């Protein structure tokens, strides 16, 4: 076995030297001008691998903050009567301590601020930047056989605009009026009028500013990803030989480029309404004891603009996870991904459809019910490509020889979550059922499972799988498995019961449930959810420990291709330097999923077709 590996390894080196493409890269790079000192190497780096790590670690920090917020508001929902005075040192005046009894309660305003921040942070900073930013940056050049991104400088800016967005959002939490508290969708008039909510003053200004910077980051990143994928593929890497990860990043970047600007235009009009007394979204409002002058605007216009991004956004979140899972499953199952082209076409059709379904978030918003007919049809059509993807993943496992390790297990977990959460989408996408389910906990359960947990599982699969490429060491297997089982069981235990809450009619974004008889029967369930949420959150720290411990102390990677994968990133040195390949660029001879073909466990993409061998993906 050891011999076999050495042979393959030598063979691979030979293939790159012999068949590789000499782009004279190293002749032009006089030394590594990008990495001449600590700052240019680790802080203002233009190397895509470093930027990927920056995105990942920043994303992880935000994930911890965002998840910790959810734990705090879950405490309020699960144990509304318990004193939270012990949180006062951390949260200060957001915990209101009753002078007579000493009982501390979470202030209502802060509860809504937490919910809002949790949503914003998770959707944008963790699942968009942390997921797509990390893996697009890491994998696009490595898997395509490129030296770096098309524009390393824009790439660096993309990270730093994201960082700036994060700083502004973080600062907004320290305002005396608190951060924005009107929900992550920021519907006006609540978000437009400081009289309507404390957080809609300076908090909302910073929120808008932060997200505009964030969109700049996404746009810079997206332009780069698309350009790199279209132009910097190595010789032989035609589109149909790209790994599914690359396809997913490409489609994600295109969706992001087309939809995020619309969000900014929506934000711009909102800023005008806030600062210049225009009336794009405001009409006939009496608030704070006075009738405002605004007439003729429509809050529904904002919802259209917001969801024109907002819906594609959920695919921006889930598509990279889908790509990662496809790649990881195939590699660890030692079997080609089933229906490669069907996978690509289903992602393309999901990407296209994501632009014409936005109003399914607005069935009950007061839009003309007739319009909803079209959105129902397009929304439910998305179930078809999604179903195809699920069936293909299951068929990939069928008759495989699956290696159990954290990446493959998280990939299986992803598919399970995607099935569970996807199916509840069929309820919500059908406007007639949405009449009752809209804005209830059923929706909370649905999107947390299908987009929150599933995407995070995809991210975990990716981190465990490509950690050896990022840091030259493995993450600990045992801790990873513990992390997987805890997260899988925890996630289902938290979100599954929420379906029942929703079916009982309990609306989301309620500070407490006992103000209504109808919603007050579930305190036991809410306690259960809160306890599991705390445990599951604690378990994620295991991942964090594992991550940072393994960076410095993990088991060292000793071979270039530890997973026996076919794709190009595993032909680089164990710790690839700037330019990724020390000599020639590899050239690609076949599609990326030749696992178990003709009795060989795997055939790398750089290996030429044997005589009489045919490409099988047709």
């Amino acid at each position: 076995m050891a011999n076999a590996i050495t042979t393959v390894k030598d063979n691979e080196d030979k293939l790159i030297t012999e068949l590789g493409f000499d782009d004279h890269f190293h002749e032009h790079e006089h030394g590594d001008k990008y990495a001449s000192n600590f700052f240019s190497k680790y802080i203002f780096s233009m190397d895509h691998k470093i930027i990927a790590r920056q995105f990942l670690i920043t994303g992880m920090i935000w994930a911890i903050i965002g998840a910790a917020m959810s734990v705090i508001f879950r405490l309020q929902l699960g144990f509304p009567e318990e004193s939270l005075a012990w949180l006062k040192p951390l949260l200060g005046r957001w915990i209101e301590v009753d002078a007579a009894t000493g009982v501390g309660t979470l202030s209502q305003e802060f509860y809504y601020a937490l919910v809002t921040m949790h949503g914003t942070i998770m959707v944008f900073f963790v699942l968009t930047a942390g997921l797509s930013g990390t893996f697009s940056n890491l994998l696009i050049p490595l898997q395509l056989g490129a030296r770096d991104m098309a524009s390393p400088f824009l790439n660096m800016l993309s990270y730093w605009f994201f960082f700036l967005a994060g700083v502004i959002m973080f600062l907004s939490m320290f305002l005396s009026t608190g951060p924005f508290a009107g929900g992550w969708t920021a519907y006006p008039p609540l978000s437009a009028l400081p009289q309507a909510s404390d957080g809609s003053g300076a908090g909302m200004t910073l929120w808008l500013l932060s997200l505009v910077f964030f969109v700049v980051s996404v746009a810079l990143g997206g332009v780069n990803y698309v350009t790199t994928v279209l132009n910097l593929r190595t010789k032989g890497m035609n589109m149909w030989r790209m790994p599914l990860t690359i396809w997913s990043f490409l489609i994600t970047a295109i969706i992001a480029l087309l939809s995020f600007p619309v969000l900014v235009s929506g934000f711009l009009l909102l800023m005008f309404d806030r600062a210049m007394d225009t009336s794009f979204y405001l009409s006939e409002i009496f608030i704070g004891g006075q009738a405002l002058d605004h007439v003729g605007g429509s809050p529904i216009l904002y919802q259209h603009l917001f969801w024109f991004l907002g819906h594609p956004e959920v695919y921006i979140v889930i598509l990279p996870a889908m790509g990662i899972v496809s790649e990881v499953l195939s590699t660890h199952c030692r079997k080609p991904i089933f229906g490669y082209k069907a996978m690509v076409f289903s992602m393309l059709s999901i990407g296209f459809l994501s632009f014409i379904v936005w109003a399914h978030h607005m069935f009950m918003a007061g839009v003309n019910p007739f319009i909803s007919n079209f959105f129902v049809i397009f929304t439910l059509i998305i179930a078809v490509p999604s179903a195809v993807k699920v069936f293909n993943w299951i068929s990939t496992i069928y008759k495989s020889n699956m290696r159990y390790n954290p990446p493959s297990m998280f990939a299986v977990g992803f598919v399970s979550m995607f099935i569970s959460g996807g199916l509840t989408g069929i309820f919500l996408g059908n406007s007639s059922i949405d009449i009752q389910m809209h804005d209830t906990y059923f929706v909370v359960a649905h999107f947390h499972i299908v987009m929150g947990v599933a995407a995070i599982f995809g991210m975990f699969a990716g981190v465990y799988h490509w950690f050896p490429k990022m840091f030259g060491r493995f993450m600990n297997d045992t801790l990873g498995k513990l992390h997987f089982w805890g997260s899988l069981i925890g996630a289902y235990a938290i979100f599954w019961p929420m379906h029942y809450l929703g079916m009982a009619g309990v609306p989301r974004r309620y500070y407490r449930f006992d103000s209504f008889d109808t919603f007050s029967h579930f305190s036991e369930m809410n306690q259960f959810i809160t306890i599991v949420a705390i445990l599951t959150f604690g378990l994620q720290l295991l991942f964090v420990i594992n991550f940072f411990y393994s960076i410095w102390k993990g088991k060292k990677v000793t071979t270039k291709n530890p997973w026996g994968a076919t794709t190009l990133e595993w032909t680089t040195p164990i710790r690839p330097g700037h330019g990724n390949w020390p000599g020639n660029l590899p050239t690609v001879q076949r599609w990326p999923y030749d696992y178990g073909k003709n009795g060989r466990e795997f055939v790398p993409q750089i290996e030429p077709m044997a005589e009489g061998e045919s490409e099988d993906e047709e």
Partner: protein
Amino acid sequence: MSTGLIIIGCLILITVVAVQIGRVTELAAKIRGEEEIQFESNKRGGFLMLLFLIGFLFYCFYSAFKYKNWMLGYGPHTAASAHGTELDSMFNLTLVITGIVFLICQILLFYFAYKYRGRKGATAAFIPHDNKLEVIWTAVPAVVMCFLVIRGLVAWNDVMADIAPDEDYLEIEATGSQFLWYLRYPGPDEKLGARNFKLISGKNPLGQDWTDDKNLDDFQPDELVLPVNKKVRVRINSRDVLHSFFLPHFRVKMDAVPGMPTYFVFTPTVTTEEYRQRLKGYPEYQQPTDPKDPQSEPLWKTFNYELACAELCGTGHFSMRKLVKIVTEEEYQTWLKGQQSYYLSSIRGTEDDPRPPVPVETDSTAGKSAQDTLTSTKDTLTEVKILTK
């Protein structure tokens, strides 16, 4: 301070334990050979997958059964409105279809993961695609979706349709504001009067235009009281930010948008009393209403329909409750008699009243038309007379 230290201490301890567990297994792998360990891990993982599948499915069925009688649409909670039944059956149809897909997919996923765990000497099959299979599993979901779309849209267009021209109905108005609902009934003339948001004040919370005669008999009750089996069109409005008019038991929900009135048409079919009788038969509703006081009335006896807000509207969003009562026609008429026009009770004769204090018998056009409107009910007329004298 000490708690903080203990927490930090615990975290450090956990870290150390975690790292040690990790190192032990890595050392074991070194001693016994990576491959051997991998196969063992595959076997263990495979069994755990199977175990998880069984536990998960058991949990799904158990919990669904446990909460069944609390969920709207099940047990005692069949819809209390005419259109609700249709929506409930739509939900159940989708539940059956997605339930089947859910079971098949989850079982196959975890079973395959178990069955095809890597084993010594085994190899994976090379199956890159199968066009026939793929066509089938694209077509089948497509057909099923068509079916759901068609049924769903028929129900949707049916439910969302406005009142037909010749239909008999009662029109009321609900206005969301931070953080309570205002209700307005049209009074004997069965017409809601004009409003203008500029006229809103402490004494005129809805900005009713008192020069509009239709406003004179409108009243603002504290509770939403409706006669059973009568079609109701709720005009939904907002004074400030977005709200959503949500009647969970009637499957009614519609956003309240400032500057753009929306509506929802529904027919309540079960009176509050009938609903209580339904609940009576279920053990869940025999519990005392106040869990701390076992002597308090059982839940079914204190049951009430409720109106809630379902669109985040600020810090008090969770507290926008109004009581809803569905009563028989006779009870409704009795209740109506007890309601007094907001104009007569709070505006008439005060400085906010733009109408001249005209005796009812005058010839002025405004007064006359007001009189015409008001003569429709004798009681109100008498009241006007008394007031104007």
